[in-house]
């Protein structure tokens, strides 16, 4: 499903060169729930961003669903992200000036989908994450857990195969964190979606099907 080969990411400025990822080779299988762990600054989020085509590697290849994404142009990348990938961020990244329904509809806005279909799809996923009673609320009127559930709804509304979650419970208290993790497991088990999650939480990592660990830009386990 996702295949990273000889991946390297180096951040260069005029004075210094920082190696964020070094010779990463990784394969994520279809339907897998993979967690990535490691100390801060070890390159976990960089790896996730490269998998999500939000950042380009310095060298190496990223293959998703059998498609090599390295030579894709901006438009192709945008369309690919829109159809194949869903993102869940630690800080939710909801647009505060849009209500819950409009936030969830956002990925469909970049497809040729009619307004009524968009609405129907958004309502369906909001029902799934248990927020159908909050569709007219704005993000500022929701709790952190609810915001993350909206973000998950937005990630799955376009029916992508892969969900990339960057510390999805990092900003939540333990109770809400458990709720969000339950939701992600449900998406993995019931819908068969592949999930790659960056986390600092050992307990959450143990619940996933596989855990890999990073240290100083290298995969150590």
């Amino acid at each position: 499903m996702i295949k990273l080969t000889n991946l390297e990411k180096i951040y260069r400025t005029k004075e210094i060169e920082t190696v964020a990822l070094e010779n990463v080779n990784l394969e994520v299988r279809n339907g897998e729930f993979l967690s990535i762990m490691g100390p801060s600054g070890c390159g976990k989020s960089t790896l996730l961003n490269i998998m999500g085509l939000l950042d380009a590697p310095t060298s190496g290849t990223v293959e998703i669903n059998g498609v090599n994404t390295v030579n894709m142009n901006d438009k192709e990348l945008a369309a690919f992200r829109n159809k194949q990938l869903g993102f869940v961020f630690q800080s939710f990244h909801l647009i505060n000036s849009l209500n819950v329904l409009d936030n969830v509809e956002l990925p469909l806005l970049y497809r040729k989908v009619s307004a009524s279909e968009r609405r129907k799809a958004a309502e369906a996923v909001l029902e799934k994450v248990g927020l159908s009673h909050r569709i007219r609320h704005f993000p500022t009127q929701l709790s952190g857990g609810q915001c993350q559930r909206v973000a998950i709804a937005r990630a799955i509304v376009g029916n992508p195969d892969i969900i990339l979650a960057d510390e999805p419970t990092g900003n939540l208290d333990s109770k809400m964190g458990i709720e969000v993790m339950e939701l992600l497991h449900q998406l993995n088990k019931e819908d068969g979606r592949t999930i790659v999650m960056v986390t600092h939480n050992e307990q959450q990592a143990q619940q996933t099907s596989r855990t890999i660990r990073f240290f100083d830009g290298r995969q150590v386990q």
Partner: protein
Amino acid sequence: MIIHTLKIIWNQRRSNGWIFAELLVVAAILWSVMDSLLVDVCTYYSPLGRDISNVYRVNLGKMNPSTSGYVPDSLKETSDGEDLVRLVDNLRQAPQVDEACISYAACPYTWSTAWMSVTQAGTTDTTEVTDQFQCFRVTPSYFDVFRIKSEDGKTLRAVVEQNGGELVISKDMETKLYNGQSGMGRKLKWSATSTGTMTIAAVCNPIRRTEYERSEPCFYLLMRTDQDVVEEANNIPVQNMECLIRMKDGFRAEDMENFLQGMDDRLTVNNLYASSVTPLGNFRDTMLKDRRDAMMKKIILICFMLLNVFFGIIGTFWLRTQYRRGEMGLRVAVGSSRSRLEGFLYAEGISLLAFTAPLVLIFIINMLYFDMPDTVRLPYTWWRFTVTFGGTFLLLGLMIVVGIWFPARRIAKIEPAEALHYE
């Protein structure tokens, strides 16, 4: 996508309200400035009705008894008026001179003006037709000197000489007196009680006094014969009469000194002499200097204001776009291409501007209702509205696009992962 854009604008109405207010005020001021500037430009470049290039005024002097060569009245056989006619004939005969004329209160770019009231002959009701008009006393050759055309574009002098009559009226005077009907051949008199009448020999194009003024209804009272000139000149100090010459094409102002030397004693007739020659361009420069300076100050002020507005608008939209970098990163993450992202930002800015249009329109209607725009020099037409209203919004739109373009390009250049860090 349009509804999505409108939703965002509406939901951000608190912060957008200030931008909306800023755009509204700027659009209203900009429209006022553009309208005023358009009137000035259109007035400046519209036809003057005459051509002063290569035209010179011969300044007249009269000797006094202490001057050598003074001819005492007892020895003189001619009047001052006859001397003037002879002097002008001498000038006309010079090969460098294209045409020469005599006039009174008719030299352009001088403050010398005469106003006369006239009324239509044969009309008992004088309330509508008696009015004051600027009056120029001229010989028919004046029309050749200034190349004034008839309303249908013919050489005015030829029309005047073909038709009998004492008057040439301007097109706007004809309109004022006869409401669109032809004035050719009609009769006018000085007042309702006058017995003598004057016939209109021709109608000329509207004549403007200066580049900054619109044309005023005016008429030329013809001095067809030398006797008419003599009579006029004998009524006033002869040196107050105007002697104007058009030099032939190719004659340069630097050649004037040689020309005057070549004329020698032909520039003196009895006690009357040509004291100097001044290009009419010099009169124009002197008369319009204050207006030009004022206009320059106005243009500098407008440029300064536009620069301020430019930076204000750009700054507002720049900050607004920078502030939303995180949102832009998210949009790219969920499937927007960078070009589409830029398009969205432009659409948002332009939509905000478009919302001000109805209010600016109401402002303009109010300004027109209170007669604030200058409709004297330039009538308010759909053309004028389109140019100023369209120009205002085009200029503001450009400012908004520039204000969005720089930060949007910067955001588009950075990787979405980095943009997502800004929240």
